[in-house]
């Protein structure tokens, strides 16, 4: 008997299976590569050979692709990332006060007081300072992203990099690299810049109290962890499954939901082999001209998204309903 959580993020798609004691049994980390549907199917292909459908007694989704994923897999709940991350963090440590979460497109700060989320903030308009930007810089410098943090750790001093905008940061990095600064120092400078920007933008007006958990894909970067510790002046903690926290949280929330509803809506692993694809069209029903997305499974429509008036999405009724 397992609970499944699927976190469809902009950069990675994570699937976590936890047992009834909320212990992580299985984790699958896949690159979304711009195709959330395919990523979920890939994950299910791996799971199909190991588990029976009946072993999954609850399924939840989170991440920016949660609605589409929920429609495809038949999730019991599709929950936003803030709640999912906070749920998972509180499960491993009841004393956590602050969660720093940096993912592919989003960075967030979650403030917890006595086990309740009392405040949060997210990056407002652009994805500067998030994982996809680090990803892109690693690619540009031809360093595997997994080793990016080690480079920063090697640096003895730091180079100042502009941090408010990813485009500014990139130009700054290129200009400094062309002047001959060492790569390791530039990378460390980038980490410092991202942390500076995080504290000043996301963390503005918030008091960051220990204990701090650092989670999300970027937490793998040791340079970022060190930069945060230098800035805050105390130790921060990266949980063991830092990259699975969203998925674990979604699984926990789903398990609670199923206790209420009594039965899971999970559709099974068979969808791994089905032909799932999407088509979008401009609805001509009114001047809003919504871009509507249709999701097909073997030529049957299983969901509509993107219409404002719910003319289309109501046809799929419950699957598009927000949690």
């Amino acid at each position: 008997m397992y609970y499944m959580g699927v976190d469809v993020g902009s950069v990675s798609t994570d699937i976590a299976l936890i047992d009834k004691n909320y212990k992580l049994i299985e984790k699958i980390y896949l690159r979304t590569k711009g195709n959330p549907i395919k990523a979920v199917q890939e994950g299910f292909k791996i799971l199909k050979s190991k588990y029976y459908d009946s072993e999954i007694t609850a399924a939840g989704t989170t991440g920016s692709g949660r609605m589409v994923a929920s429609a495809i897999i038949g999730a019991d709940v599709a929950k936003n990332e803030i709640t999912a991350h906070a749920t998972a963090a509180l499960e491993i440590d009841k004393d956590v006060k602050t969660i720093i979460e940096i993912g592919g497109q989003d960075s967030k700060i979650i403030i917890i007081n006595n086990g309740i989320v009392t405040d949060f903030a997210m990056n407002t308009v652009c994805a500067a300072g998030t994982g996809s930007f680090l990803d892109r810089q690693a690619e540009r410098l031809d360093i595997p992203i997994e080793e990016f943090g080690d480079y920063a750790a090697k640096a003895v001093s730091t180079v100042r990099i502009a941090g408010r905008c990813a485009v500014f940061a990139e130009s700054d990095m290129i200009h400094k690299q062309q002047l001959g600064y060492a790569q390791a120092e530039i990378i460390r400078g980038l980490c410092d810049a991202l942390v500076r920007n995080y504290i000043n933008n996301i963390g503005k007006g918030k008091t960051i109290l220990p204990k701090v958990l650092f989670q999300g894909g970027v937490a793998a970067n040791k340079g970022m962890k060190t930069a945060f510790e230098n800035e805050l002046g105390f130790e921060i903690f990266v949980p063991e499954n830092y990259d699975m926290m969203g998925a674990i949280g979604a699984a926990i929330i789903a398990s609670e939901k199923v206790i209420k509803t009594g039965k899971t809506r999970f559709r099974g692993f068979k969808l791994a082999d089905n032909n799932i694809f999407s088509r979008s069209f401009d609805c001509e029903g009114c001047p809003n001209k919504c871009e509507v997305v249709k999701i097909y499974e073997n030529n049957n429509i299983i969901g509509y998204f993107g219409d404002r008036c719910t003319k289309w999405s109501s046809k799929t009724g419950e699957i598009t309903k927000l949690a």
Partner: protein
Amino acid sequence: MKATFPHLGNVYIAVKALFDGLGIDYVIPPQNSDHALNIGTKYSPEEICLPFKIMIGNYIQAIEQGADTVILTGSCGPCRFGEYCELQMNLMKSLGYNLNFIVLDMPKDIGIKELFNRLVSIGSTSTKSKFEKLKAAKLAIHVMHLIDETEALSHYLAGYERNKGECKRLLQECKTEAMKCSNPAEMLSLIKEYKKRIEYVSVDINKNPLKIALIGEIYTVIEPYSNFYIEDKLMDYGVSTKRGMTPSWWLKNMALSPVKINSLNIKKASREYLSLEIGGHARECIGEAILSYKEGFDGAIQIFPLGCMPEIVSKSILPSISRDFEFPIMSLVVDDMTGEAGYITRLEAFIDLLERRRDNVLYGS
């Protein structure tokens, strides 16, 4: 003359009433859409704020339908909106459009006589008598107030309704039907009727819905396209919302400002945090945040376009208010992105946060 004007929420309904009453030919630009934004982004200065771009889209789409005169409100205020009319005039001219602009500025900036002249120039193509013109203006103002009240009512009752979606449906229907009316009197009675119907929507007074105030920059809080139809979404979530900024509030505020008795409650509320007029509606944003806390709201959402100077100032003040009153406030910045997923996540997370604070829920669904 074939007049047009930029969209701002429900203003088009009142403008229809006005021009129908005056018997002036007019074009209502197609409702704001990605298409209007695309046109605007193509021609506007790249760094300008979002409202400017959407407005340029409105003009060009209206010109395609024969419009030759733009009626626009102005402000010589210290925010960029003060330069909108001049910039837009130059821009439209350099694009080769022969467009006449009538800018309704504040009397203190252009003088009451000049404002009067400009108003007369709008009315000059009307064949109606002076009395009828005044009557049309009065009716249009009445329509503006009534549609704003009707909208506010349905946004508030959406949290209490028994049949989910009824308020939203009635409001939508009211707007659609109003646009089919051929004269302002007919429109007025139709909106009245809808208002009554919304008042009588079956509600559960024992419900205790979340209440959220929408504050921030005037264009982006009022114009639904620019804020991802946030009020519709909140209605779907069963949240009661309040928005102080409305076109009718703006009219009243303008009319009372020369004698400095405008929005006294807001000025008083904001005094401790922002005692000066810094342009735009920063002071209103701060004042409304505090007022909504005092009125028992659960939280507030600030919306503003990227780079908006006054709202950047208020955004940096809001965390102090949030801390002092333990009142959650979330800021949303809008620009020409049309992907909604990020906004929906923030909205859902904010609602979750408010619910959990209220119920003291540790976690879970």
